[in-house]
């Protein structure tokens, strides 16, 4: 790839320190995460609860202040911007929230919600703001009369559309979608995913798509990043990852996807136990406490991401053996 990636994250780390005057462990939410998102592509972040997906998403937009690492958006290092510069850059990147009931102010009309960002970014005059807000409303296929109503009058799916419209009103280039469908009914999920997919293609958006639903990720993402305890386990193009997963964690995750065809059964690999506490992660490979292939050496060094195929990297010290099919 010759073109410079639109979003480039290097060595991103976030440690949450205990409150002042109180003892407590440092929570290592994300540890040395690096990845790239080419312009106009969708990269998925998957992992179970507590794997640091949301923290990565928020750190990229600097809604959470990262402890270390750099985030380059179109060549601009987000982590080094002053508060004023950051506010100006904000219109280029927007966030879509998981919970459509918490993400809209109950005291504002939909019009006010959609125009808030335009007002903050100094879009004048008011007629322009109204026009852009109404265009955003139309883009998410909501009726124009929603403009003067309040969020509580809408259903979850409609509210999520409003959340998407709010992000689009600023005409961003990068969107971080944080589990945009996991709070919705299954029947609504498909609508919202299709809407996001259409908008992404039509507007050429670059997107970081956070989810724990592997089926959704496969549908919408070009590249998938598998996270565990704040570390990247495997990165691969979506097709490769689903056809030929390398990391034992990815394999366990994929085996948990329900089989839609009756009669066909897949061999389920059930992970034992819970994800360890990020306040006290295991030494070496963080996945070793639940890994079916763990050996003594796993407790030693932290495995780095090794290239195992075309644009396919996996962090496991037994990569070679797995590739040879010696173990599974």
């Amino acid at each position: 790839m010759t073109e410079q990636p639109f979003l480039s994250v290097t060595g991103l780390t976030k440690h949450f320190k205990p409150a002042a005057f109180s003892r407590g462990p440092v929570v290592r939410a994300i540890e040395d995460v690096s990845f790239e998102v080419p312009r106009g592509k969708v990269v998925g972040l998957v992992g179970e609860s507590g794997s640091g997906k949301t923290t990565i998403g928020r750190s990229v937009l600097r809604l959470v202040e990262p402890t270390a690492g750099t985030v380059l958006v179109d060549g601009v290092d987000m982590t080094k911007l002053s508060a004023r510069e950051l506010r100006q850059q904000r219109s280029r990147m927007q966030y879509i929230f998981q919970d459509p009931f918490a993400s809209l102010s109950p005291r504002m009309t939909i019009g006010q919600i959609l125009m808030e960002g335009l007002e903050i970014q100094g879009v004048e005059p008011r007629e322009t703001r109204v026009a852009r807000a109404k265009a955003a409303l139309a883009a998410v296929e909501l009726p124009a009369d929603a403009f003067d109503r309040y969020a509580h009058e809408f259903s979850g799916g409609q509210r999520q559309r409003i959340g998407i419209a709010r992000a689009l009103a600023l005409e961003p280039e990068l969107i971080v979608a944080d589990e945009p469908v996991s709070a919705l009914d299954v029947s609504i999920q498909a609508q919202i995913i299709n809407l996001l997919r259409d908008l992404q293609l039509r507007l050429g958006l670059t997107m970081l798509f956070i989810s724990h639903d592997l089926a959704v990720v496969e549908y919408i993402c070009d590249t998938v990043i598998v996270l565990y305890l704040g570390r990247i386990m495997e990165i691969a193009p979506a097709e490769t990852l689903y056809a030929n997963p390398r990391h034992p964690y990815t394999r366990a995750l994929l085996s948990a996807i329900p089989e839609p065809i009756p009669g066909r059964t897949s061999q389920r690999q059930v992970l034992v136990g819970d994800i360890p506490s990020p306040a006290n992660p295991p030494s070496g490979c963080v996945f070793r406490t639940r890994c079916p292939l763990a050996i003594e050496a796993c407790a030693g060094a932290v495995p780095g991401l090794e290239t195992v195929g075309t644009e396919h990297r996996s962090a496991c010290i037994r990569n070679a053996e797995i590739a040879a099919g010696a173990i599974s």
Partner: protein
Amino acid sequence: MSAATRVATPRKTSKGPWLRAWERFRSNGAALAGLAILVPILIAVSSYPLWWPYAPNDIDLRALNQAPGAVHWFGTDGVGRDILARLLQGGRISLTVAIVSVAISIVIGFLVGAIASFGGKVVDNGVMRLVDLAMTLPPVIFLLVLASIAGTGVMPTIVVISLLSWPVLSRMVRARLMELRERDFVVAARGMGASMPHLLFRHGLPNCIDILVVYATLQIANAILLEAGLSFLGLGIAPPEASWGNMLNAARSTIVLEQYVWQWMFPGGALVLTVLAINFLGDGLRDAFDPRSDLN
């Protein structure tokens, strides 16, 4: 907007948060009763020079300590001043002192709470320890010291009462704003580049309105009582200016207490009635603004 667009999109009736709060308030009998008592009092107090012939400091030497009757409806006091006129003027002073001092303490309380919640951990700790300090001072002694420094009169009384009543409010505002700071729609506003004033006044203030309104009504009742207490002790509003508190002061004399009952009963009654009405109103407002009542 042109008439054409208005015809194209007929405005649907859409209940805003204020309208819904009013609907809940309307179904509360006690709160409506409070409002029904308070509104006539406010009207009478603010308009009395227009319809009552006597001024509060006019002396009628032919009518000392006169019992209520056709001329002086609520009687007269020891120097022949009309009780009703003094009662209404006293209400003016007492309510003005209460409302202004509560308004001042709301501004102080909100700003202190806002600084504590948005200023970071160090600022928060510093400010809140100061608030703790202000709260631990015994109110009566603090009041007496402040009043003896500030002196008597309307302005000093306002200052004393407003300095005493902001700490509790600032704690409530701080707690609300800290919770609000993590809410998704506030994070979204930050993600759109919102500045601190925008966050504070577009999201913080509207979502604190319920706290502020409820606190204001209940605190006005409290401030009326504080003013009465101070004036009763001779530290608040000084005679000849009338206030409900210094009118009650007359009851310290045994003769007045036993023989000229109307001289203290009317200000006492007005005080009780007003405070009670405001408390009912405050309760009603609290229920009306409680977000949980949306669930019913």
